[in-house]
């Protein structure tokens, strides 16, 4: 979590700051899934108040890991604030959010799906889970 994607501020990669991550929404007809490797504007939602590329993910908490050199564990990370798309109108149904690394050629990080939604002059909020080993948004088994 601090190599290709630098969620924290002490990465292996030659950088001293965390990368910037963004969250883009996709319509129900989009093919965005575990095979997605990079952000694309194809089938991204569009509408009043929404900017292509989505919103910046608040990342004030570095990833955590429970493993030591001798034991396996879990690496985990959760955005430090909910994803909020304020005062938007998105009339085409959408059901997917892609989190991607805009500092690393828009490389995909994760895809999350939910029931189809539309928004009319309103706010779409994705509440982030508690940042624990069992509920964090991103969880990796380590060896």
């Amino acid at each position, binding site marked *: 979590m601090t190599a290709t994607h630098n969620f924290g501020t002490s990465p292996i990669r030659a950088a001293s700051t965390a990368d910037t991550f963004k969250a883009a929404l996709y319509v129900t007809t989009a093919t965005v899934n575990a095979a997605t490797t990079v952000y694309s504007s194809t089938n991204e939602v569009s509408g009043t108040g929404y900017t292509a590329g989505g919103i910046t993910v608040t990342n004030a908490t570095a990833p955590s890991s429970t493993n030591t050199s001798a034991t396996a564990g879990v690496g985990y990370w959760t955005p430090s604030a909910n994803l909020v798309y304020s005062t938007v109108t998105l009339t085409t149904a959408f059901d997917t959010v892609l989190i991607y690394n805009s500092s690393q050629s828009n490389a995909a990080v994760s895809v999350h799906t939910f029931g189809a939604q539309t928004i009319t002059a*309103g706010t779409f909020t*994705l509440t982030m889970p508690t940042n624990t080993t069992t509920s964090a948004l991103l969880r990796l088994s380590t060896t």
Partner: protein
Amino acid sequence: MIITTTKGEMDDSLLEKREGSIDNDIELTTWVEYYHEGELVHRSAHVTLKTSPFTNLVAASMA
């Protein structure tokens, strides 16, 4: 309460409010809709994800 609508800001006393929710293994979602004379003028939704079915860290490694 003032509601942002497609017709501008309106007092909720002028609007019909409808609410709903979904609760399953994937998500807890709630939404609120406001109608003015039968027309949808505001809809907001709030999704809480419970699982990450397609989480896929690409070329990431642990440090």
